[in-house]
């Protein structure tokens, strides 16, 4: 019984199948009557205290045995994943060499701002709080005043912020495994023991690495997709390539565009106006949410208009591989919002010294890939350049949106031992459709507000999980919010607004209260099998009435 009780939860004695229990009761009665023909077993003490209890226990054992047998059946598990315990399901799936992924903790850098330029030391294991979760430092960090004092690997330099304060960064990791610890750039994170002169602290970049442990449902889905062997062949094989590589096993969605797909442009490079095949564009969404990364770029002064300068930066292929767009360009450490106005963007591509690279002939094809490069010119409205010569340089903080790991996957499939000899494969970040979703929750008189934060999180999660379908229905949002509503509460005034950033750098806006439909634009590779929807909880605007 021990293995049975470990594999399945015991059925409640009072929730067994009524008809089956009655049937067992009759059977027990008949057998007992045959064995003891002088006992009254129809209705009485024997019936109530012996036969009925025996029938119930026998029925429970029977149902538990059925559960156990079903829990060893892949077909039954797929029909009802709640039937067996995770241990039992894991045991079955181990026959397919599948084991659940344990998840990992999020980590990242924290900017600590102090108002004094004296040495500050943050100890190993120092704790911080954010989102109700605890984060600990991964090492000792001593922030020094002078560069000459930075000697040990644990030393770092205090840098001025421009508003009279000083800042340095420390690395932390979340104590809780899962995606809940994935802080966004600039999100507040507070030390339990503030250092001397503490002013504020926040996430330097989006945290990375936070992966939820794989659930039974996830594992079953992986098993269903798992029969396809890893290989660069069709949709299932491509997915298997990612799934069998632990570094990419948590990829959210992927779409393979190849021969015959209208969004495939790279197989039309010959003088013939037809697709000749042999090219694959592989759109991979590695994380539910896009990442925000802050780059420190050296800008060159390229033009002057009185005391206002136009500066130029170059974002190389390894700076932010496959990034979507620039959110802001500001002086380093600036706490001001907004961005300097961008006057020109010149896209390009760079194969560097790669021994092999995909067939790319223009920046359009290189967009959102690891080969993408960009020259950006912007106007710095705060720096007086009247005394600076053309060619002067200055650092700026450039915040970009990107899909992580695009470069790693491209490098993986481009390596000599992995590369497909049947054609070339170009890994791309999905074309993004950044969403803003608004709706109203109508309450009954006197009802309290529902948990709006939880609803926003659930809606963002649902939207970010939509596959390459080319459309987003309002019902996805309604279904995500519904479990968090109280009786009588309803959703009204749904508004879905999407901004598609196309590979040529242009944007197109789509809006609808019921269904956002991606406009097919094959010449720009925009279509159902190339576009993904993105929304953060901050993009979900909920009002109540």
């Amino acid at each position, binding site marked *: 019984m021990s293995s049975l009780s470990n594999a399945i939860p015991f059925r409640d*004695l*009072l929730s*067994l199948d*009524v008809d089956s*229990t*009655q049937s067992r*009761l009759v059977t027990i009665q008949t057998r007992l009557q045959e064995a003891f023909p*002088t*006992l*009254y*077993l*129809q*209705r*009485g*003490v*024997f019936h*109530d*205290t012996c036969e*009925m209890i025996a*029938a*119930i226990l026998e029925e429970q054992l029977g149902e538990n045995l059925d559960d156990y047998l079903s829990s060893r059946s892949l077909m039954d598990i797929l029909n009802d994943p709640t039937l067996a315990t995770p241990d039992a399901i894991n045991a079955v799936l181990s026959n397919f060499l599948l084991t659940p992924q344990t998840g990992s903790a999020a980590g990242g850098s924290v900017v600590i701002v102090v108002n004094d330029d004296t040495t500050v030391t943050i100890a190993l294991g120092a704790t911080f709080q954010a989102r109700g979760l605890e984060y600990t430092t991964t090492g000792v960090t001593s922030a020094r005043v002078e560069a000459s004092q930075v000697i040990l690997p644990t030393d770092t330099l205090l840098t001025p912020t421009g508003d009279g304060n000083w800042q340095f960064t420390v690395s932390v990791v979340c104590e809780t495994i899962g995606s809940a610890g994935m802080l966004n750039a600039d999100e507040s994170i507070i030390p339990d023991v503030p250092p001397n002169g503490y002013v504020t602290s926040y996430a330097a970049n989006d945290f990375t690495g936070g992966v939820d442990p794989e659930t039974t449902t996830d594992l079953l889905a992986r098993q269903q997709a798992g029969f396809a062997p890893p290989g660069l062949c069709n949709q299932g094989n491509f997915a298997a390539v990612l799934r069998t590589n632990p570094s990419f096993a948590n990829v959210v969605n992927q779409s393979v565009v190849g021969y015959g797909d209208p969004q495939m442009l790279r197989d039309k490079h010959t003088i013939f106006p037809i697709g000749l095949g042999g090219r694959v564009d592989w759109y991979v969404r590695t994380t539910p949410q896009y990442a925000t990364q802050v780059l420190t770029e050296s800008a060159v002064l390229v033009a002057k208009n009185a005391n206002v300068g136009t500066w130029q930066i170059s974002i190389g292929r390894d700076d932010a591989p496959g990034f979507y767009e620039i959110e802001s360009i500001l002086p380093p450490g600036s706490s001001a919002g907004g961005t300097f106005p961008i006057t020109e963007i010149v896209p390009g591509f760079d194969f560097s010294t790669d021994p092999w690279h995909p067939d790319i002939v223009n920046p359009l094809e290189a967009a959102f890939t690891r080969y993408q490069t960009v020259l950006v010119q912007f106007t710095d409205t705060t720096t007086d350049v009247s005394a600076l010569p053309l060619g002067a340089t200055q650092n700026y903080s450039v915040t970009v949106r990107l899909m992580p790991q695009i470069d790693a996957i491209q490098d993986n499939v481009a390596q000599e031992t992995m590369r497909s000899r049947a054609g070339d494969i170009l890994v791309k970040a999905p074309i993004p459709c950044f969403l803003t979703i608004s709706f109203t929750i109508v309450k009954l008189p006197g009802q309290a507000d529902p948990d709006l934060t939880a609803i926003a999180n659930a809606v963002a999660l649902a939207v970010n999980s939509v596959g390459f379908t080319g459309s987003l229905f309002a019902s996805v949002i309604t279904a995500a919010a519904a479990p968090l509503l109280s009786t009588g509460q309803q959703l009204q005034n749904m508004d879905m607004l999407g901004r598609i950033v196309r590979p040529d750098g242009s944007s197109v806006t789509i809006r609808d209260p019921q269904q956002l439909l991606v406009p097919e634009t094959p010449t720009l590779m925009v279509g159902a099998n190339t576009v993904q929807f993105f929304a953060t909880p901050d993009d979900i605007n909920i009002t109540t009435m």
Partner: protein
Amino acid sequence: MSTLTSFVGRLADLNALRTDPVTGLVTFALVAPPDGGQLVVGIAKLFQRYTRTLLLKQGSMPYRPDDGCTFLIDADSGLWRTTFDVGQSFISAGLDVYRQMLADELDTDPPDEMFADASLVNIALTQDQVGITVEVFSQAGTSVVGVLPIVTLPR
């Protein structure tokens, strides 16, 4: 007092009711020293079967939701304020009890184990207890009387 011949050709149940020979008060006990349990047949078995049906709250037995009647449900719900209320409950539960008693019986059962009727002889109402005296009649024309104590204080 039953004798060995009382059991010949009959189906015996375990005796769960012990009746005081002087007061007629019925208590529930499968084992009551000095005996280690008794078997019961005849009208005593009929009385036990009747008592079990009358004092079983309908819906309270798992997988036998129709067994029992509303007699003690009325007691639990606080409806019993006077002896008249107890009598009303007894009458309204009577139809259910009658139907179930007949449903349990076979034509081949001995007449003194087959239900004919039951009447409420007396009701003694105290602050925390109701003692009802019930007479159960068999198809053989025999009857048996017992006093069933029912605690009405909330437990």
